[in-house]
């Protein structure tokens, strides 16, 4: 059985139950006067039905195509996870230390993750951060976050 369908089906089921319950508290209304919860309720109900179909078909097909898909072997998934983690930290520190410093740090990490040597990575990250800052701040008039450092 395809473990991917099993996991994703359950996630869909859980989320849609949450949406359905929240929709009831919003008020579903009637067909003559549908309210704010009308659309989310019926849509989440459809998701529940289809995720159940997915789960049932996955379990029913286990003897036909018994396979467990390993999504994480033969790939450097750690790199992707580290990039995502770095971006999460970036979102948190951007308003605090400002665009130039935060972006330089992020780019340095991303260049390093992409197997660039440290000195070229430092230069490239500074270049990318300063160039994008100039382009967006002065040419496109987009005010980038300055943070406590003032830039």
């Amino acid at each position: 059985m395809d473990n991917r369908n099993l996991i994703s089906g359950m996630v869909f089921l859980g989320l849609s139950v949450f949406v359905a319950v929240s929709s009831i508290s919003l008020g579903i209304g009637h067909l003559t006067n549908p309210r704010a919860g009308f659309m989310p309720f019926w849509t989440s109900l459809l998701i529940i039905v289809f995720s159940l179909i997915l789960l049932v078909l996955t379990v029913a097909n286990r003897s036909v195509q018994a396979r467990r898909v390993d999504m994480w072997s033969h790939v450097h998934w750690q790199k992707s996870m580290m990039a995502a983690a770095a971006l999460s930290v970036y979102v948190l520190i951007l308003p605090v230390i400002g665009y130039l410093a935060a972006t330089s740090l992020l780019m340095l990490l991303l260049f390093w993750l992409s197997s660039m040597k440290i000195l070229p990575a430092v230069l490239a990250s500074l270049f990318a951060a300063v160039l994008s800052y100039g382009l967006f701040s002065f040419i496109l008039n987009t005010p980038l976050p300055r943070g406590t450092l003032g830039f």
Partner: protein
Amino acid sequence: MDALNGLFYGLSVAFEFHNLCLLFAGCLLGTLVGVLPGLGPVGAISILLPLTFQLPPAGAIIMLAGIYNGAMYGGSTTSILINVPGEAASAVTCLDGYAMARHGQAGQALGIAVFGSFIAGTVGLIGLQLIGGPLSVLALKFGPPEYFAIILMGFTFIVYLAQGSMIKAVLMALAGIILSLIGLDPITSEQRFTFGNIHLFEGISVVSLAIGLFGLAEVLVNLEKTAPARVLQVKIRNMFPSKSQWLRAKWAIVRGTVIGFFMGILPGGGPVLSTFMAYGVEKRVSKHPEKFGHGAIEGVAAPESANNAAASTSFIPLMTLGIPPNVVLAVLFGAFMIHGVTPGPLLMTQHPEIFWGVIASMYMGNVILLVLNLPLIPLWVQVLRIPDKILYPLIVLFCLLGAYSINNSVFDIGVMLLFGVLGYLLNKFDYETAPLILGFVLGPMFEVNLRRSLLMSQGSFAIFVERPIALVALIVCAILIILPLIQTIRKTSRPIS
């Protein structure tokens, strides 16, 4: 304004110096993005959208349409030279394009791809020009029931034409609808799923969603790959196909154009699917199907013609009905809205400079791309040699800036990141993201038209069968639902021999 006068008016708009410059820039950027593997037209339009914020709406849309068409042209270069599609609509071109390149015919493969794209793209534009006007007039007569039924038909097509599991496509489209409902209720202005967060009152930005799903997610998927793609070491000499190659390719171009023309209009069809269909048809009608996959020029001409014809005609439902038929046009729909323009039947009368200006500029863009692609192919080959270690971090930077610039808000970067990770996981779990974004864009229209129809009919669903256009759309829906069911029943009831 009739089609011919409209075109002349459009040409006067497109020939304005700044619009011409924007069109050229769009074509160039689009081709560059199309050439680079890992960033398709959706990501490109989303990321480059902030560059258009300072522009007048007509110029902005002209530039974005140029990016789209440029990406369609550029994608084939990567497919032919490194066997990795620059964007999804060029995936099929890899099969015979790369084989031709390995046999020393890279130039001819690139050449037929460009010529086929030009011919098909132009035919698609003629269709857009001729059909666009009358369809806009017809669409003015549509009310909420018609719109609801047509959008429902769109959803059904999206699921029916899904490349993977239909159940997963349904789930994705429904999830897209749920996401689109976040924010204030369009009729009562009540808060829905905002959790009190002021940033969510206006809902999730389609641009942040698209950048995350199609820009950042692509980088995350590519970052984990162990072996980078290698550019074929070939000398590109003659890019003009020989007479015999032309003779073999001409009907492939015609068939590809026809398939692309109609697939572009269909919701859920679009350039990607048209290439698979065109390749399949070409292989089936060929006297030498065994040559496909080993360097058959028809295998390059047909899909490349199909994707460009589809790229042109996919503007028809967007500009006349306000319904984006595929994921790229869904993002373009968002771009229209950001620039304060609502695509739909009133576009032609309220913003003729955009309606006709975009059509005329696409004609000109086709010529620019023909001229740009042939002599610049050696340059694109050099672009392909940019190492991934430089490329991917820069794409991430553009993603960040693209998401931030929509509202100058760090929150939008967070949303983009969330959908980037979600897109990465959906890829792992074998889900297509295109139905999600289409569900997201069509969701609010779907809800408003359903609720208005029910209010009009005082809760009776009969309103959908009493109106002829709505009834036809619902019959099409029913057929599209019943067909796969019949196929499944036939398959299961067939005795195992």
